[in-house]
């Protein structure tokens, strides 16, 4: 199976899911390119958005350890989902991940596909709060690139 994160983002956009791409792709957009095994996304917590997300995931033949239903997706999330286009890591209300509505975001377009990503300041704050080894490495590289702010 080819990992196609652009295809995943396109599908979520087509279903009008309110989400932002975080993790490795956001870090890459802000200057630090490294490999990542999945597409990390933070989603709006509303039920209508969970319904749109459910439809998008079904169109990607998604499977996960929990049923992919709106009632499940609307709750606190840290859920890895396998799809035809690769792994998606759904994140909400976990350490280092702010509420989608409060997340300062900006847009990047890749091959006609719009990515919403955190601003550099929001991303750095997320990395500081998450505090895992890889977050500290990312933060050090972002600080070197953008200044330690």
């Amino acid at each position, binding site marked *: 199976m080819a*990992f196609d994160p652009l295809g995943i983002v396109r599908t979520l956009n087509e279903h009008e899911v309110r989400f932002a791409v975080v993790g490795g792709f956001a870090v890459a957009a802000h200057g630090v390119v490294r490999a990542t095994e999945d597409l990390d996304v933070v989603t709006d917590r509303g039920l209508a958005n969970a319904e749109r997300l459910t439809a998008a995931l079904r169109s990607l033949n998604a499977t996960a350890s929990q049923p992919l239903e709106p009632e499940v997706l609307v709750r606190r999330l840290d859920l890895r989902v396998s799809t035809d286009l690769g792994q998606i890591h759904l994140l909400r209300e976990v350490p280092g991940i702010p509420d989608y509505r409060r997340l300062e975001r900006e847009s990047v377009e*890749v091959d006609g596909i719009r990515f919403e990503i955190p601003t550099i300041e929001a991303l750095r704050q997320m990395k500081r709060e998450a505090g895992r080894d890889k977050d500290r490495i990312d933060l050090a590289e972002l600080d070197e690139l953008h200044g330690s702010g």
Partner: protein
Amino acid sequence: MSQVNSHTDPRQTWNSPEQIARHRAMSATERIKLCVELSREALRFAAARRARR
């Protein structure tokens, strides 16, 4: 001892200030595309290792 040329692949980044500088000069769009490519290669490598075991 064989000579390892570590600076011919434009996607290679480790211990290479020139490559890091090149990534920094890219646009966000270009870096996301490069991240997709790198990630695919890493996943292929991981899958090949699993298959050999």
